């Protein structure tokens, strides 16, 4: 059974691209870019301000990916999967939490000291209740991730999947999210080769 990429998103810390086309270009960098983009995209979700940068990045990537769509109106919430990978886990927040321990450990930082919290934030925001997993790997592994996601969809454990990568450490960030569905789409079949092409294309621009 074939699955298809119906939309994809890149965030490089300066701009947000949807299907390779600029959606939002920022004037700031680092964590400030995330707040600027949130405002620039006209989002209204005050909880965003309480999130750590990794979760903010993941939320922005998802908002750009699903712009104009609410997956849980099209699919059962249990049929929407979120499979994301990252390189640095929650290290950025871990370090800031460690620093906070010198005075008073911050509870609001502590709750973000796991990378899969970003997926939780996506699920809360979108009302998603399907399978979700966060993998940690040095570099993006499209072969592994495509196998995993295609397995979920082929086995009918999900009907649609938000799949990709989000990483943040000390102001350096990148996100690459794809929406993978069972309906044919012009962006191509979802497999490791297409994923590699789309992933590498953006970083060459």
């Amino acid at each position: 059974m074939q699955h298809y990429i119906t939309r994809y998103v890149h965030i490089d810390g300066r701009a947000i691209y949807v299907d390779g086309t600029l959606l939002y270009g920022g004037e700031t960098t680092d964590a400030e870019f995330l707040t600027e983009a949130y405002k620039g995209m006209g989002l209204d979700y005050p909880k965003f301000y309480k999130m750590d940068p990794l979760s903010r990045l993941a939320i922005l990537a998802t908002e750009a990916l699903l712009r104009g769509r609410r997956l849980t109106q099209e699919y059962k919430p249990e049929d929407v999967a979120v499979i994301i990978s990252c390189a640095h886990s929650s290290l950025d927040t871990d370090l800031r939490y460690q620093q906070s321990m010198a005075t008073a450990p911050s509870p609001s930082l502590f709750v973000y000291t796991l990378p899969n919290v970003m997926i939780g934030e996506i699920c809360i925001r979108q009302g998603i209740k399907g399978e979700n997993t966060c993998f940690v790997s040095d570099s993006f592994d499209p072969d592994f991730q495509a196998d995993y996601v295609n397995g979920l969809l082929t086995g009918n454990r999900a009907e649609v999947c938000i799949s990709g990568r989000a990483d943040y450490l000390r102001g350096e960030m990148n996100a690459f999210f794809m929406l993978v569905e069972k309906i044919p789409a012009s962006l191509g079949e979802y497999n490791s080769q297409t994923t590699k092409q789309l992933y590498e294309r953006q970083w060459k621009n």
Partner: protein
Amino acid sequence: MQTLKGQIVEQLNLQHIKPEDIGDDQPLFIEGLGLDSIDALELIVLLQQKYGIKLANPSEGPTVFKTVRSIAEYITAHKAA
């Protein structure tokens, strides 16, 4: 109370709210500002860091953190003590 409102906004990362927009008697949790249990812990940290006050009895939390006024009254009472 204005100073306290500013501290609450800063401590809880309520960047979408101006301190002056928080009413003295506005409920802080659920139907009011919509704060949650993590915010309650941050308020406890705020009392410790800014005022050197430790919430002696955690069950007092819902009463103490009900509004900005109730927090201010708790601070006044315990700083004087």
